[in-house]
């Protein structure tokens, strides 16, 4: 058996783990190891390198993990959820396939209990996290425009992605409605710069960016961290964390693809597997002193899962508006209905994300499924009538924490011999009201535009990317899993640094906040363990 040791062991090389490792790499003489169950992804394998990219993206780079065949991919039993989980296992994690939509939470998201009397407040504020948002933005390269009335000032942005004809059509409709809209905050490089080549509008960001313009964590963070000495062990899964009688983790038992076992001993352990994998590992690490799962004396580990149910509306514009040109998920966002307005009949709200339309194959597949096209004499006309004319709007609803929405262990074992995670989720009553209203609002925009063939539905089934809240942070050990620094209440040398810390979900894509949190937690770890290898910060915040 191989035995390794380090100062900080980070588990997971995705959005959170990559940002955290980058920050830790600035502390000289700190020995950091990161273990990732997947592999590096090669950009020349991305579908957009090939003429049949639409076929390829449905297999190896499908956003549906069950459609992919990848070693290291882990399986989730989500049969008890109307919304199926989506994720990508590999270096960079789900940022490899994310759309790059990169808005921040709002200040109000951190104090929902205080402002609205529901859910809970975070133990940290927007103001505390703001410098970490800025630092992460600087590393990632975020395109957008300053001056958005929906946010406190955000500066240092790269030029925004052009709206394109479709975006302008939607923007004009929003202006006529008098509603907020703004060019998307996009983790996409829009100029040739230190980040590499600029975006060339390949379109399907969610099958990997062959250009390397999308700021997935494998592209932006890992090269820097590796250069600074962080050791990344891929294709290896941490099976269990082992604790001693002092309630300290003393080792991580890992297994690689070849079945070889490895033990890594560290002073500090940081789990960065996000809302499903983090509780999964800790639940699988149950022992005599923690029979309900490691760091789970509160009983909240795996609870309060928030998924951000999506609503979707789509319509067809009369003219060709080149709607398939440009980054698919990054065009316009609207936060007209983000904050609580009780006259609407629910708490909190939703963000609208205007989407560019898919390629020709997916356009026609959707058309056939939705009876907007048929085989036979009208086939070609149906295609021409819809391709490059279709406008989609997704509405991300705020999901409130609900105890019964959870990640637990399934009786089923995976190929590594560990019990797979099981997701139990149902859409809450408040969220249902948000979804219902958001569909109405989205349809209003399409009607204003003059779009035809409007379809609408909610929740969207295969949209469970935002897996949040299952190891919430808080001030008390009774009602949270970690403290305000991401340190678990029960196990002093165990930290969590990912979306599972979210107390409430807001209604925006969470990647920006997850990474800002991870960098913040890296600094908290060093502050708490200042004698750790006599580290010193070589790159002050």
């Amino acid at each position, binding site marked *: 058996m191989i035995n390794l040791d380090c100062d900080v062991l980070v588990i997971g090389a995705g959005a959170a783990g990559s940002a955290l490792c980058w920050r830790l790499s600035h502390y000289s003489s700190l020995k950091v190891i990161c273990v990732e169950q997947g592999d590096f992804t090669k950009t020349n394998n*991305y579908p*957009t*390198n*090939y*003429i*049949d*990219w*639409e*076929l390829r993206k449905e297999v190896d780079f499908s956003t549906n993990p069950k459609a992919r065949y990848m070693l290291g991919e882990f399986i989730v039993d989500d049969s008890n959820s109307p919304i199926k989980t989506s994720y990508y296992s590999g270096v960079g994690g789900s940022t490899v396939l994310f759309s790059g939509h990169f808005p921040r939470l*709002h*200040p*109000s998201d951190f104090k929902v209990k205080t*402002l609205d009397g529901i859910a809970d407040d975070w133990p940290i504020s927007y103001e505390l996290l703001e410098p970490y948002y800025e630092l992460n933005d600087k590393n990632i390269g975020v395109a957008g*425009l300053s*001056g958005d*009335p*929906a*946010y*406190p000032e955000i500066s240092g942005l790269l030029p*925004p*992605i*052009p*709206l*394109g004809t479709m*975006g*302008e059509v939607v*923007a004009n409709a*929003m*202006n006529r409605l*008098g509603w*907020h*809209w*703004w*060019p998307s905050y996009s983790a996409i490089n829009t100029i040739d710069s230190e980040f590499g080549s600029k975006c*060339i*509008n*390949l*379109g399907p960001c969610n099958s990997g960016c*062959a*250009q390397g313009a999308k700021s997935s964590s494998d592209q932006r963070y890992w090269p820097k961290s590796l250069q600074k000495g962080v050791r990344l062990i891929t294709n290896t899964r941490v099976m269990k964390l082992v604790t001693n009688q002092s309630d300290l983790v003393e080792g991580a038992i890992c297994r690689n693809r070849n079945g070889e076992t490895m033990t890594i001993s560290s002073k500090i352990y940081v789990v960065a597997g996000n809302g499903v994998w983090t509780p999964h590992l800790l639940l699988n690490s149950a022992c005599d002193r923690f029979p309900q799962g490691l760091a789970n004396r509160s009983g909240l580990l795996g609870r309060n899962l928030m998924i951000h149910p999506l609503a979707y509306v789509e319509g067809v514009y009369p003219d060709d508006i080149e709607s398939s*040109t*440009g980054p698919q998920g990054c065009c316009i966002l609207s*936060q*007209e209905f*983000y*904050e609580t307005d009780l006259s609407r009949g629910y708490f909190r709200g939703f963000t609208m994300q205007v989407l560019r339309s898919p*390629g*020709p*194959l997916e356009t*026609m*597949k959707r058309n*056939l499924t939705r009876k907007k096209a048929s*085989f*036979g*004499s009208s*086939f*070609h006309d149906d*295609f*021409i009538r819809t*391709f490059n004319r279709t406008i989609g709007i997704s509405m991300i609803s705020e999901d409130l924490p609900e105890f019964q929405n959870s990640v637990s262990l399934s009786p089923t074992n995976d190929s590594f011999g560990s019990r797979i995670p099981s997701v139990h989720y149902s859409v809450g009553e408040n969220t249902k009201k948000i979804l219902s209203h958001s569909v109405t609002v989205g349809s209003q925009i399409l009607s204003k535009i003059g779009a035809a063939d409007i379809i609408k539905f909610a929740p969207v089934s295969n949209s469970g990317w935002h897996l949040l809240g299952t190891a919430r942070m808080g001030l008390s050990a009774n009602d949270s899993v970690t403290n305000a620094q991401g340190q678990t209440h029960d196990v002093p040398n165990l930290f969590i640094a990912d979306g599972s810390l979210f107390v409430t979900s807001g209604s925006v894509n969470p990647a920006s906040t997850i990474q800002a949190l991870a960098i913040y937690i890296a600094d908290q770890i060093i502050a708490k363990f200042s004698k750790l290898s006599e580290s010193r910060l070589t790159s002050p915040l």
Partner: protein
Amino acid sequence: MNHNFVELLNFMIPSFSEGLNGSHVWKSCRKSRTLEVKFQTLVEMGLNKEILRELNPNEPITGSILYDFIQKQDNQLLSEVGNLLIECWFTNSEVLESYGIASREIFPHGKRLRPTDWTILESVFLRDKLYRE
């Protein structure tokens, strides 16, 4: 290729084998073999023999008749064939070009979005803050 199958494909996507050089579409498609296997299933269910006898012998067997017939017999199978067919169709460079869509791989050429005149944002920019603190 089986004549009836060609009839069926040409009905589903008009001019599949003619106007847009269907054989080329066929050869270039990585799913064509799967599609042929599906068609074998159709053959095995008697498309060419017993079942066809149930059709009006005086009426020529057109793609339209076959389509309606298979739909009644096994809609799931027809749906799978349809899916494979459009996968072959919309991943063919000549087909895409015929619709006016660039035939080449989108990387490294990319596409162009014209610059936006951001004065379109003026009315939103002038609004009071929308967020709460």
